[in-house]
């Protein structure tokens, strides 16, 4: 599968001649790409359109005449210039290509019958198309031990390797993990790791995908299938919110492999290993294959009709007792858009409760995410732009975004200002790094934006460090993009929102790229899975009338967020708590509150793929279908909608989340009004303002890149009046055209909003962010350390734990401390320490990390020691004290 050239815009055209035919190319474009776009494929091994050319394999030699006579030149190294003439088929070229291919084959083992690559191997294919046909080699071939593991998941067969430098270049240039390299020289040159240092890159699986031979194979796929037995569909990885485009491959109804697809707007064909091997989670033996019903102190398998009957009876009983306020739904950020909408319609439109939150207190308030001006990845990565990272470490949480941001900084001259409580994987590329004291991000932003600079230290940072970052920001001439998320769950979301508010107010044209992490959290929020919102990025109060036309009911007041729901449950005020793929015991920021909530809720209904710590405590567990088992759409962190395709049948009798919602509604006496994902999408397109116009037909025209919502407004008619007069929003008609009110029987979506239609009810306006009062952060207690709780790529969470390739990679929990804090803490020889926060405490191993600021301690989320046991969700920051563990 040769990689296609990356898309380009021709703004400075030159004419080149390819085999006698004149074609137009972009000046400076690589000749190999220009020829391919013109329909002439030049064979290659080392060249990859997403990496810098190296001209090493010499397979792409062609005769090029730039005015000094034809000469053999590597077409991957030559930039197109006007008048260039290329012959890709001359006798000389064929001889050279024959020769190079023969050189590559003489030491190649030709063990194709037992090689995973056989059947999809560029070396095989190129040999068939361009090769000499027979070998003149009679000597002994090179021998190495076959294969050697170079990481937990990647195996290296040096006999098959043709030394194209793709994997080594990828590791070094693309992801900055130069852990594999060439060793020895001449015919003994080999790729290998450094002694004792495995290729432990989060992105190592990409090297397997781009290897042009079978030298690199991945343990999860090794010997599982032959390429000609695979079936595939395109889809979007649901591992995190970046939304990398992938092909999902299966054989005999079992998922076997994901490969990255080159989406120019998103992942450029790269994937992180957690996403790449995520199919193992779908295949897990631990998957729930049928519903479970509580019988006393344990859960028993049940039939669907019994389980659904029990669930609906419990819900109905609860509504009878406590009304809609006693009903709450937690989770939903890993559903498809369609399932999210179905559940929102069930909770808000049938039950009438606004107590719905897709996040678990570890994200940001929905209105900040949806209401601040949004940026796409391409916006953020624009050459010459400035990126402010005020969020989690992209390398740990949003792998492909890390790759894009790194490329923007290293290759395209973007400037990165890192404002995080601890250094991230991008720190070494950052123009400035400000590691602030947790909770005080807003103070740092304030100092950065302050006209005069600062002479005092702010948030633990020296004035010089702030001045250096300020100089970078002040020099920004291009767009400024803030990558916004929660750097640490041990500081409250409001402290980050305060910082974002300052940036939004005071940096002209600033845009925000959300770094919320869970697969479809942005789709869930867009579809109203947050209190106070309804589908379409609209406020409940503003849109109540609009949805009142189409839904049985609409909540009468704003509901509770995750923290509020759990607090109410702990207080005995929640009758029915639905966990929609949520595991609050593991994932909610405050474990103590989650414990009390699950005890306090009268009924817990879990919709899940696995029996998690939380769903084990449910009264009814409904088995949900997983990724690639359902069709639908998903929304990434840019609001980009892409299509998910089903590839295999759901595990056991598990059912899609949306159909569970439909059935429950039915048993509660309501018809949700749809019977397929397509019908749900039609309703979304019709009712949701932000999705208006995005029909499935339109989506089908962008199979790889999808469509960012909302669609750009149609060309506005010239406005006569002065713009400043409209600032109060009184002229909203121009921005939010009235849409024909939906009627219940209408199944056909309007392709475009119609301005002059019979406007019965005005479509609601998209919400705008309204800043809240700033959060008070308590002063630093000099006897305490302030806690950072960042996320890591591999943790003990459900998705990782059920993928054998990734499960072993979760690091053991360790509290990282600045060396001086470590020495002061009096930690014993065993390295273990008791960490106390208020009346909560854990015992954990401690280690030294000089990159942390003094007075800060870091304990990752999702480890074997739960940092959420230390966090009080009501506090702005988490201060801890250390004592020797006994």
């Amino acid at each position, binding site marked *: 599968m040769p990689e296609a050239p990356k898309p380009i815009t021709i703004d400075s055209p030159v004419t080149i001649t390819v085999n006698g035919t004149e074609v137009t190319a972009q000046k400076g474009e690589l000749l190999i790409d220009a020829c391919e776009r013109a329909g002439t494929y030049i064979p290659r091994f080392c060249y990859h359109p997403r990496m810098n*050319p*190296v*001209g*090493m*394999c*010499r*397979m792409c*030699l062609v005769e090029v005449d730039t005015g*000094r*006579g*034809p*000469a*053999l*030149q590597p077409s991957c*190294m030559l930039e197109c210039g006007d008048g260039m003439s290329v012959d890709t088929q001359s006798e*000389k070229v064929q*001889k*050279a290509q*024959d*020769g*190079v291919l*023969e*050189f*590559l084959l*003489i*030491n190649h083992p030709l063990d194709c019958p037992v090689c995973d690559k056989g059947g999809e191997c560029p070396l095989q294919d190129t040999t068939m198309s361009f090769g000499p046909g027979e070998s*003149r*080699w*009679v*000597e002994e071939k090179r021998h190495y031990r076959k294969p050697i593991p170079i990481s937990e998941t990647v195996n290296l067969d040096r006999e098959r390797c*043709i*030394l194209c430098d793709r994997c080594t270049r990828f590791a070094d240039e693309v992801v900055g993990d130069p852990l594999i*390299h*060439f060793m*020895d*020289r*001449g*015919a*003994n*040159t080999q790729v290998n790791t450094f002694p004792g240092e495995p290729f432990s890159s989060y992105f190592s699986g990409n090297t397997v995908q781009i290897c042009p031979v079978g030298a690199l194979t991945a343990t999860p796929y090794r010997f599982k299938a032959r390429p000609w037995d695979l079936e595939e569909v395109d889809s979007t990885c649901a591992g995190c919110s970046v939304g990398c485009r992938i092909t999902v491959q299966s054989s005999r109804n079992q998922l076997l492999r994901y490969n990255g697809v080159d989406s120019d707007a998103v992942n450029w064909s790269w994937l992180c290993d957690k996403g790449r091997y995520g199919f193992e989670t779908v295949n897990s033996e631990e998957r729930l294959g049928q519903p479970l019903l509580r019988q006393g102190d344990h859960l028993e398998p049940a039939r669907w009709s019994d389980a659904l009957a029990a669930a609906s009876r419990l819900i109905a009983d609860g509504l009878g007792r406590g009304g809609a306020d006693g009903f709450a739904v937690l989770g939903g950020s890993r559903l498809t858009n369609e399932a999210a909408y179905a559940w929102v319609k069930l909770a808000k439109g049938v039950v009438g409760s606004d107590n719905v939150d897709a996040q678990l207190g570890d994200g940001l308030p929905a209105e900040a995410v949806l209401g601040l001006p949004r940026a796409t990845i391409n916006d953020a990565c624009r050459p010459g732009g400035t990126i402010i990272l005020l969020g989690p470490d992209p390398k740990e949480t949003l792998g492909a975004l890390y790759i894009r941001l790194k490329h923007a900084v290293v290759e395209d001259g973007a400037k990165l200002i890192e404002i995080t409580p601890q250094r991230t994987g991008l720190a070494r590329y950052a123009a400035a790094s400000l590691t602030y004291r947790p909770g005080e991000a807003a103070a740092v932003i304030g100092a950065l934006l302050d006209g005069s600079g600062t002479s005092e230290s702010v948030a633990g940072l020296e004035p010089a460090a702030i001045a250096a970052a300020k100089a970078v920001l002040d020099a920004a001439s291009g767009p400024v993009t803030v990558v916004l998320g929660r750097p640490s769950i041990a500081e409250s979301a409001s402290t980050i929102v305060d910082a974002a508010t300052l940036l939004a107010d005071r940096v002209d044209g600033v845009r925000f790229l959300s770094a919320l992490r869970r697969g479809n959290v942005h789709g869930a929020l867009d579809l109203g899975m947050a209190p106070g919102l309804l589908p379409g990025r609209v406020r409940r109060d503003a849109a109540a009338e609009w949805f009142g036309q189409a839904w049985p009911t609409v909540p009468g007041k704003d509901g509770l967020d995750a923290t509020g729901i759990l607090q109410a449950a702990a207080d005995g005020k929640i009758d029915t708590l639905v966990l929609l793929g949520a595991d609050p015991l593991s994932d909610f920021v405050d474990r103590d509150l989650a414990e009390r909530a699950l005890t306090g809720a009268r009924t817990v209904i879990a919709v899940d793929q696995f029996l998690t710590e939380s769903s084990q405590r449910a009264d009814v567990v409904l088995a949900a279908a997983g990724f690639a088992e359902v069709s639908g759409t998903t929304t990434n962190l840019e609001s980009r909608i892409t299509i998910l395709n089903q590839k295999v049948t759901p595990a056991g009798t598990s059912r899609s989340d949306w159909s569970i919602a439909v059935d429950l509604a039915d048993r509660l006496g309501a018809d949700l009004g749809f019977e397929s994902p397509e019908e749900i999408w039609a309703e979304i397109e019709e009712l949701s303002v932000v999705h208006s116009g995005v029909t499935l037909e339109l989506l089908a025209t962008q199979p790889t890149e999808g469509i960012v919502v909302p669609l750009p407004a149609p060309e506005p008619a010239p406005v006569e009046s002065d713009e400043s007069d409209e600032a109060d929003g009184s002229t909203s008609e121009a921005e939010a055209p009235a849409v024909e009110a939906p009627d219940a029987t209408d199944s056909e979506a309007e392709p475009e909003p119609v301005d002059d239609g019979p406007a019965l009810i005005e479509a609601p306006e998209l919400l705008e962010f309204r800043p809240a009062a700033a959060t008070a952060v308590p002063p630093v207690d000099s006897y305490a350390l302030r806690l950072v709780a960042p996320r890591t790529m591999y943790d003990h969470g459900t998705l990782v734990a059920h993928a054998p390739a990734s499960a072993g990679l979760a690091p053991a929990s360790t509290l990282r401390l600045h060396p001086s804090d470590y020495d002061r803490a009096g930690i014993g020889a065993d390295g273990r320490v008791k960490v106390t926060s208020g009346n909560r405490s854990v015992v954990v191993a401690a280690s030294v990390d000089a990159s942390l600021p003094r007075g800060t301690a870091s304990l990752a989320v999702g480890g074997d020691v739960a940092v959420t046991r230390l966090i009080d969700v009501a506090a702005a920051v988490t201060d801890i004290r250390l004592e020797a563990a006994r």
Partner: protein
Amino acid sequence: MTTVSNTASGDASLPLNIVTSRWDVADGHTLEGYKNSGSYRGYAGLEIALSKSPQQVGDEVRAATVLGRGGAGFPAGTKWGFCPPGVWPRYIVVNGDESEPGTYKDRILMERDPHQLIEGCLIAAYAIGAAQVFLYVRGEMAHAQERIAAALNEAYAANLVGNNILGTDFSVDIVLHWGAGAYIVGEETALIESLEGNRGMPRLKPPYFPAAKGLYLKPTVVNNVETLSNLPWLLNNGAEAYKAYGSEASPGTRLVAVSGHVKTPGVFEIHQGTTTYRELFEDERYGGGYRDGHSLKMFIPGGASAPWFFPEDVDLPLEGRVVGAAGSMLGSGAIVVMDDSTDAVKACLRVVRFFARESCGKCSPCREGTSWEEKILQRILDGQGRPSDIDLLLDVADNISPGPYPVAADPSQGLAAVPFPPKQTTICPLGPSSVAPITSAIRRFRHEFEAKITKRDLIAVASASLDDRPLAGSAAGAAAQDGAPHA
């Protein structure tokens, strides 16, 4: 074969002492010895340079047409001029990674007269405005490294290197860097990679010259040890005196390293363009004649990558253009003499094996092709040759270096010794270098290959262990031969 008339204008009677004048002085390598012996006073050239403007120094060097002595023969002054104006800092990198079989002139220069090289570096640094010089010395040359280190310490102590040299505002640091023993690092971009701490592999071109983007992507002049060692004498005596030596196209003297089957091998300073190979081999001042009872069979006229010459070529003068027109090259001045006792196939294997071992492994044709050639040649010597092997050797060679090799410079068209377009499928010329001995040997001695393949030459096969019989004769003269390939 075409020949080019020699344009010699130099006076052959002038003393040959531009760079070798202290080789026989016991303390010539010390600062004291450098100042008090030899054909000019040590560091006087630096004083003269400092009394002029950098532009004047550069003009003097350009006027003298000092050709680079590393192999390509490019005029040093012109190379300096390639530095883009106004781009700083600039670096000078001294290529002391001499490691081709039979080449050992720079080693002697560094061992016997390190201050001469240091002074040359200072003059060059002053001319182009470099504040830092990197002396890259081949890893195996421990003695040369020690001599240079000692000389640098003396020079720093005497304020000849460092800040405010000799009380002026001219400051230069000279850094001594030891290589790790890779022939390819003699290629200037690979040398720069190695100096930066990377694997020594050639960079891709363009940029074609490090003067535009070299060390740390800054303008960098890479000069050979011998080239820079010419500068002190030149500054002392002026361009006109320099041009009195040698030919019009190649002024000055040059060092050649003669090894192999002559009575007194060694490094000799000769008149460029006027001295002939015959003089070099037979004259008592130089090689001293062939071994008794033997006659010349072939010789490598300028480095292992040069196509071989034969007895009919001995009257050619040692001048790049002439040698180039005759189908070979003068290169780094490494001349290997092989008499009638030499087995052409073995000699061919010896040279090819060197290139196979020294291939950096970066591009496929060189990495795979050179070792394939080595295997075929070894197999022929082992008595396992096949009749098709000769054509196979030639075709593999053609796949590394398509077309006739080398494309001789054509003086009528004013072409330089390095032809454009490059006749290679490789990134750098190392791979094609292995082709020269193969085509030379097969063209002239095909019958020897055939004899081995058809086993008519059983005696040769029986004694075929190459390592037991070194290619060159026993070392004698001014210096031992340094030609054993690095294994």
